[in-house]
C-alpha cells in the first residue's frame, strides 16, 4: 500500500514537472520504466540527461528510475538489477551498452528492452557477426542526425564570409561521423545551388581516416587547440560534434571573435546561456523524445522491435532557431534552409 502510494506520488510529481495532464488512453497500463545509463552520470548535460528528462516527462509510467555506470563493467550488473526489480521496460542509454542489453534480452524474453543510439542487434556469441540479427524484445532508438546537420551545413556555408567552415568530432564513432557527413554534404549542396566553393575543414566524407577528432569526449584542451587551429586557417563557423567539448569551441568563439559555433545534441541556447552570443544554431537530437515514444509504445501495448528512427519528418531530430544571431543570417538563406528542411522531410532532397 505504502509503496503504491509512493509510486502514485512519483507519477503525479513527474506529471506536474512537465505540466501535462495524466490522461493516457483508457487501455494504457502504467509501466515501470528503468534506464541503464552510460558513463558520464545523469547530469552530463548530454545524452544521459536528455534520456532521463524524456523518461520523467513520459505519460503512462507508474515509476521511472535510473542507475549510473562508472565504467563498462557496470552495464551488465545494472541491467540485471533492473531485471530483479521487475521493470517492464529497460532502456540502455548509449550504443556502448547495446551488447549488455542484447545479452539480457535473450535471457529474459518477457521483458521489453530499448537501446539509445544503436539498433540493438544480436552480433552472435562472439560479438563479431555484422550487421547481426534483430532481437524480438529489443528496440533500437536511432536518429537521422545527418538531416538537420545537412541543414546546418547549408546555413553555415550561407553565413560564412571567409568561405571556410569546419567540423570535428569527439571520437570516430558512427553516431558522431553521421553529423559530420551531413554537415559536409550540406555545404556541398549549398555550393552546387549557389555556384560557390565554400570549403569544409576537418572532415571529408570520402576520406574518413583524415578526419579531425579529439580522441575522447573529455579533453577540453585538445578541443580548444583544434578550434583555434580552425580559426587560424580561416574558418568562421565551427561545428563540434563532441558533446560537452563544444564549450571549448564556443568559449574560443566568444574570446577570439573570429568564429561562431554550432551546438550539438540539444539547443545550446538553453543549455549554455553564457555562449548565446556566438551560437549560430544547434543540431538537435531528440533522445528524450525517442525515450518518451518507446515508453508510450509499451504502455499502450504497441511495442515492436522495429527500430525507432528520429527524422525531421517525425520531429525526432531538428535544427534549432538562430536565436540571437538571426539578424546576422541573410533572410534569403534562412528561407532556403527552412525550405530545405521541408524538402528533406518529404524526400525531395537526399542527404546521403
Amino acid at each position, binding site marked *: 500500500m505504502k509503496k503504491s502510494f509512493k509510486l502514485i506520488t512519483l507519477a503525479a510529481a513527474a506529471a506536474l514537472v512537465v505540466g501535462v495532464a495524466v490522461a493516457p488512453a483508457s487501455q494504457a497500463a502504467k509501466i515501470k520504466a528503468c534506464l541503464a545509463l552510460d558513463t558520464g552520470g545523469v547530469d552530463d548535460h548530454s545524452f544521459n540527461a536528455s534520456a532521463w528528462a524524456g523518461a520523467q516527462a513520459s505519460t503512462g509510467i507508474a515509476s521511472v528510475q535510473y*542507475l549510473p555506470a562508472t*565504467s563498462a563493467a557496470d552495464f551488465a550488473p545494472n541491467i540485471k538489477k533492473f531485471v*530483479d526489480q521487475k521493470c517492464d521496460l529497460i532502456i540502455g542509454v548509449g*550504443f556502448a551498452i547495446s551488447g549488455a542489453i542484447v545479452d539480457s534480452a535473450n535471457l529474459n524474453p518477457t521483458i521489453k528492452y530499448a537501446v539509445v543510439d544503436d539498433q540493438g542487434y544480436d552480433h552472435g556469441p562472439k560479438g563479431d557477426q*555484422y550487421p547481426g540479427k534483430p532481437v524480438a524484445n529489443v528496440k533500437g532508438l536511432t536518429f537521422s542526425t545527418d538531416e538537420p546537420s545537412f541543414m546546418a551545413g547549408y546555413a553555415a556555408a550561407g553565413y560564412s564570409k571567409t568561405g571556410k567552415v569546419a567540423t570535428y568530432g569527439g*571520437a570516430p*564513432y558512427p553516431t558522431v561521423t553521421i553529423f559530420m557527413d551531413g554537415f559536409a554534404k550540406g555545404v556541398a549542396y549549398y555550393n552546387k545551388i549557389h555556384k560557390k566553393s565554400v570549403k569544409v575543414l576537418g572532415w571529408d566524407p570520402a576520406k574518413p581516416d583524415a578526419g579531425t577528432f579529439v*580522441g*575522447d569526449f573529455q579533453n577540453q584542451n585538445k578541443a580548444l587547440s583544434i578550434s583555434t587551429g580552425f580559426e587560424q586557417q580561416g574558418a568562421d563557423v565551427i561545428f563540434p560534434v563532441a558533446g560537452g567539448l563544444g564549450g571549448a569551441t564556443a568559449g574560443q568563439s566568444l574570446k577570439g571573435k573570429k568564429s561562431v559555433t554550432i551546438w550539438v545534441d540539444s539547443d545550446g541556447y538553453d543549455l549554455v546561456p553564457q555562449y548565446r552570443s556566438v551560437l549560430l544554431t544547434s543540431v538537435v537530437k531528440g533522445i528524450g523524445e525517442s525515450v518518451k515514444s518507446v515508453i508510450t509504445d509499451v504502455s499502450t501495448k504497441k511495442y515492436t522491435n522495429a527500430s525507432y528512427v528520429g527524422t525531421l519528418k517525425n520531429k525526432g531530430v531538428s535544427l534549432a532557431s538562430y536565436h540571437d544571431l538571426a539578424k546576422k543570417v541573410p533572410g534569403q538563406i534562412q528561407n532556403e534552409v527552412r525550405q530545405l528542411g521541408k524538402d528533406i522531410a518529404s524526400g525531395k532532397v537526399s542527404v546521403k
Partner: protein
Amino acid sequence: MNSLRKLGTKLSQVAALPFLSFLLAFFISGILIAVSDSRVLKLAGHPWQMIKMAGTVIGNAYLALFQGSIFDINLTHGHSFFQGFYPLSETIVTATPLILTGLSVALAFQSGLFNIGAQGQFVFGAIGASYIGFHYSLPPVLHLLISLAGGALLASIWGGFVGLLKAKTGAHEVIVTIMMNYIAGYFILWILKTKAFLRPGRIDPMAPEVGTNARLPHLAGADLRIHAGIFVALLAALFVWWLLTRTTMGFKFRSVGANASAAKTAGISIAYVTTATMALCGALAGLGGAVHVLGSEYAMTADIAGSFGFDAITVALLGRAKPVGTVFAALLFGALRTGGRTMQSNTETPLDIVLVIQALIVLFIAAPALVRYVFRIKNLKTSASITSKGWNG
C-alpha cells in the same frame, strides 16, 4: 591459550582504527542520507517525527546496502534459495581485482614506496591477458594460465621500469607512476583502434571476447558471476604474506621500508629492492587486470580499468598495508559498490553516497587524532609511519 589472547589483543589493536573510522563514516553518511531526503525535510516542524522518519530512511538505505551486497531474500522467490546470494557473488566479483591492485599498493608501502601506478599496471595486465586470450587458441587450463601469466608479466615490466628509473636516476616513483598512468590510459585507447585489437565490424574501441578456454571458470553455475579469480587473489595475498614474513627478500623489502639508510648500511642494495618491489607490484596489479578480463568482462574496452587502480590506494590504506587487511578492505569496498546499486534502485538514495562513505573512511584513517578524540581513546595504534614513507623518497 595465552597466545590466543595475545592474538586477540593484537587484532583489536590493529583493527580498531579502521573499524572506528568505518563506524564514523557510516554515521556521518547516515545524516547526509537523512537530510537529503524530501520526506525527512518535510517534517522539519515536528522534531520527534522527523527523527523517526530519518531513522526509517537511514535504516532502509543501509538495509538495501546489505541486501545488495550480501543476501537478498527477494531474489529467492521463484528461484532456488541459492539465488539469494547473487549479491554476495557480485561483491566478490568486484572485490577480486581490487584485492590484487590493493596488494600491489600495500606491498609498495611495505618497501617504503608509494605505488600510484596500479591503474596503469592494471591496464597492461588487461591488455596482455586479453590479447593472448582472444588471439590464440590453446588447450583448456594451459590457455588460462598463459593468459594470466602474460598479463602479469607485461604489467611487471611496466611497473618494474618505474623501479629501475628510481634506482638508476632517483626519479620519484609517485611522479613517474602518475605520469605512466596517463601513458597507459592513452595507450589502451590507441591500441584498441589498431587492427590487432579492434573487434571485426566495430569502429568503437572494443577488443574481441577472449576464448572460452582462457576464461576463469564460474564457481557457482552460470547464473552467478563469481569466478575462480577470487582464488587467484587469495593465493596472491598468501604469497605476499609469505614473501614479507618468511623470506630473505621480504625481510630486505621491509628493512628498506622501515629505514632505507640503515638497510643500506647493513648491505642491502636499495636499487635491487626498489626495482624488485615495483616489478612485483606491477605483476600484482597486472594480475588484477588479467583476472578482470578473463573472469567477468571477457572483452576489453578503453575504460576497462575503471577506478580499480585508484581505489586500491584507499583499500591498502584501510587494510593498513597488510595482506589480510587488504583482502578484507577490498571485500568491503566491493560490497559498498555493489550494494550502492540496490540502495539507489530500492530507496532512491543516490549511489554517490557510497563514494562519500569511502572518502570519509580514508579521511578518518589518515587523521587518527580525530578518531581518538571522538571515541576518547588514548592508545590507538596508527599506521601513519608505514603509509607516509613514499612521499619523502
